[in-house]
């Protein structure tokens, strides 16, 4: 497996990628757009883009992912895709009848410079329907950037400050996470008695139930009214700087809604931060139910700490998820020694630090000297592991090749997970999500210990 990868690291300066740890913007925009109720994402580019993104999202969620394409031809690439987009908008409303269409661009249409807002203005849009857009040049950032851009566009197109006083409600931007995570964050907000608007919200869309009937536009998703009302909230909590802070900052700029940017609530510390932010914003006591969950989590972590302590870990994936996972494994006493994301390090337009600095500071608190890289690839990660072996690998499905090559226990977290199911329904966020992660990690480590044990060392109780 991956036998062409050498231990010797030859410096690569081309900027090319071998075995990517990211994909391109449009898929993130498509996923975010699915989090608006009644929305059909539309890919303005060649057919292949839309097909690839639908394929990958479908394989991750194992649910229908509906999206349309401008079906570019060579002619459109030369003369511009205006006619394609206008035809598409007309056909989509007539044939599929969504409440709105969310257009995102591709490297093709960004390169030729199609002016999407002007094209939308001249398109035939039926009464009561809406078309929004975001620019997602595939040659900038990553799929996380695309998610962030579409989420910011929701603010641009919808959010309005219409009340003189801000409402007692909070906007929660969950970031590029699974619907299972979004449901868990909403549950926590409800327990905290915090009225909230979550956007985007793909729960009820890409985890829709089997009823014997196909619904092109399932029950879930943030409504347009909610997106508009987000401008009246008294606070926005952006979870995950890379996926969520741009939209939050835009809300502040456009509607004067102050922002709190927190980590994606993976692990006890980041979840505490979310709970504390809600507690402070709504001056409300933390209910016993949450306190009990937290106590259970600490109990589990303490009871099993000897399974984890001192074990070396390699973590890769999307920056917000990797940050959360790094903090979580550290809270278990593990040592994250290789930490890598494929996404470029600084959130575009954001003034807050960089991935490299953030992670360095985080692991520095435990005195760990780790290999850290943004805009990295899995070829690099594999070579790091060959040079400094680890006890555990955490990342998306693409990590399985390295895990097999180096015979390392592997825990699948993040996007995409293509070779296991149910993950998108189950949270990794919140106290209960952390319990699940602890179970997954200890399961992987102990299964390995069992596998490797000699008969006389094979234990009943561990």
């Amino acid at each position, binding site marked *: 497996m*991956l*036998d*062409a990868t*050498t231990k010797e690291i030859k410096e*690569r*300066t*081309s*900027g*090319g*990628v*071998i*075995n*990517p740890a*990211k*994909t*391109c913007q449009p*898929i993130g925009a498509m996923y975010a757009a699915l989090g608006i109720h009644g929305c059909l994402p539309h890919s303005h*580019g*060649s*057919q*292949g*883009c839309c*097909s*690839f993104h639908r*394929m*990958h999202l479908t394989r991750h969620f194992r649910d*229908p*992912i*509906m999206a*349309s*394409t*401008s*079906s*570019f*031809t*060579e002619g459109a*690439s030369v003369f511009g895709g205006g006619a394609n987009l206008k*035809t*598409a908008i*007309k*056909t989509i409303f*007539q*044939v*599929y009848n969504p409440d709105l269409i969310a257009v995102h661009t591709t*490297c*093709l249409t960004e*390169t030729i410079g199609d002016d999407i807002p002007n094209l939308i203005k001249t398109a035939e849009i039926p009464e009561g329907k809406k078309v929004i857009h975001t620019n997602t*040049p*595939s*040659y*900038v950032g*990553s799929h996380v950037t695309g998610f962030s851009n579409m989420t910011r566009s929701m603010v641009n197109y919808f959010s309005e400050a219409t009340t003189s006083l801000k409402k007692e409600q909070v906007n929660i931007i969950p970031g590029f996470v699974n619907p299972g995570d979004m449901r868990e964050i909403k549950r926590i907000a409800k327990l905290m008695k915090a009225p909230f608007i979550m956007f985007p919200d793909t729960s009820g869309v890409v985890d829709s139930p*089997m009823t*014997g*009937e*196909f*619904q092109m536009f399932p029950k879930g998703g943030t409504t347009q009214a909610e997106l508009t009302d987000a401008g009246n909230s008294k606070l926005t909590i952006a979870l995950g700087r890379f996926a969520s802070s741009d939209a939050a900052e835009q809300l502040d700029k456009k509607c004067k809604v102050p922002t709190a940017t927190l980590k994606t609530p993976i692990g006890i510390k980041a979840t505490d931060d979310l709970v504390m932010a809600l507690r402070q914003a709504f001056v409300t006591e933390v209910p016993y139910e949450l306190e009990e969950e937290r106590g259970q989590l600490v109990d589990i972590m303490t009871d099993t700490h000897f399974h984890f302590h001192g074990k070396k870990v390699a973590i890769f994936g999307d920056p917000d998820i990797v940050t959360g996972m790094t903090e979580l494994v550290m809270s278990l006493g593990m040592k994250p020694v290789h930490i890598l994301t*494929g996404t470029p390090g600084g959130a575009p337009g954001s003034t807050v630090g960089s991935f490299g600095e953030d992670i360095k500071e985080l692991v520095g608190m435990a005195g760990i000297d780790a290999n850290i890289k943004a805009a990295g690839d899995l070829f690099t990660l594999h070579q790091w592991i060959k040079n400094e072996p680890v006890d555990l690998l955490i990342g998306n499905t*693409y990590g399985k*090749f390295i895990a097999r090559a180096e015979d390392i226990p592997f825990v699948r977290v993040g996007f995409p997970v293509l070779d296991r199911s149910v993950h998108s329904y189950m949270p990794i966020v919140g106290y209960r999500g952390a319990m699940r992660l602890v179970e997954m990690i200890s399961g992987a480590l102990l299964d390995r210990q069992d596998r490797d044990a000699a008969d006389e060392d094979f234990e009943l109780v561990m």
Partner: protein
Amino acid sequence: MAITEAQLEEILAKYPSKLQKNRKKHIIINNQECGAQTIEANTRTAPGIITNRGCAYAGCKGVVLGPLKDMVHITHGPIGCAYYTWGTRRNKARTEDLAQNFINYAVSTDMQESDIVFGGEKKLAKVIDEVVENFHPKAITVSATCPVGLIGDDINAVAKAAEERHGIPVLAFSCEGYKGVSQSAGHHIANNGLMDKVIGAGTMEKANGKYPINLLGEYNIGGDGWEVERILTDIGYDIVAVMTGDGSYEDLKNAHVSELNLVQCHRSINYIAEMLEVKYGTPWLKVNFIGVQSTIETLRNMAEYFGDPALKARTEEVIAREVARIEPMMEQYKKVCEGKTAFCFVGGSRGHHYQGLFGELGIDTVLAGYEFAHRDDYEGRQVLPDIKTDADSKNIPELHVNQDPNRFKLKLSPEKMAELKDRIPLSYYAGMYVDMKEGTIMVDDLNHYETEEFIKLLKPDIFASGIKDKYVVQKMGIPAKQIHSYDYSGPYAGFNGAVNFARDVSMGFASPTWNFIVPPWKEEPLLTGKVNAEGVA
């Protein structure tokens, strides 16, 4: 159950008027009494339509080049295109030299904004250098994505210079996603490049074994190619090269020595098959290893071509042994499948091939079609002279080859060729249409809306298609079978494959999970109980 023209009109009525007329030409209700019916294919999908189609890059790098295991395939473009063609098609490969198997690697130039503005040629050259330094492959391919053609990067010049620097072949493919109307354009572009630069580049003049053949259009999805190889090797064929599943640059360059080219997927590889015939005088045989009967027929046709009584006898021996072995297994599955109906909408050849296998299981295909095929794949190659080129097909360069002055050799006399052509599909493909029953429907580029409507009308028991519509269909309570990636199972080709397919399809029907869709409280009223003397429950 057939549908009427009126019902079809009703479905199409939802479309804008221009699109109505367009889609009507892509849908045929099979009525062979009225003579040959014409279908429109390989033309543009209307913008906004939710189509299953992909792009030229997907057809070139994703389908044809990707499976070649000992070459490093570089995608020149932003990251997504390389990412989505990395391990997603299940084209398996193994090599003796483990360090020369690049099937699990994805290499991209990961173009950034500055590359779009200032050009990406230098970056591409550097990436090629790093690939050579790290992997030492025997050959490299470079596939272009949309922006490459738009900004005018000359990938051919970069490849040529790299060839000179490194002394290995570096092949450039201008398969920008916007070319043509589907993956099909990319197949053609890949075929041209492989024919032009690889096939015939080897020094072999004669094959090592008896009955040397190439297997074209077999991509080893789920190990299909390995099952076919098992059977062919058992009979005594010498497989020179497979295009391209588990294929290699090493084998491909000597593909000119074969005596017969087998064509499994006509759509994606017929260009090479034709060119091999012109250049080396080697005919091709349309084969079909999907289904027991199709496999048997294919094996007999191959033996017929070589005409050797010993080969024919060995062929019958293997057939008899294999059939005796698998028949009891097939029987148990037939009981589950008998009397059911299917939709079969796949790619450019499987939409046809799987109908036979469904039929063997007692499943009638009531609607079939291709995602990106041409008219000849539906109607047969006799329509080729009638197919008009349009603006989109003109953009794909035709490669014209000539007889190789040293290596051209007629494998059969013209008389023998003519005689055989009467009996076996030699250098001919009859298409899907002739195998479909009266009243069945043929749909080209079936889209989401039509899928829903046809399902409502025809209520098939199983839907054979791809991942993008799989869960749409299953939400309706109908099992959906991925025929692109086999739902991560396989092989489905050959004798063992037929059993696997029968097992998997039966599983789809027999799974208890379908029984739970309706919750019990939806079937029972909330208030039940007896009325007692006081009238209270």
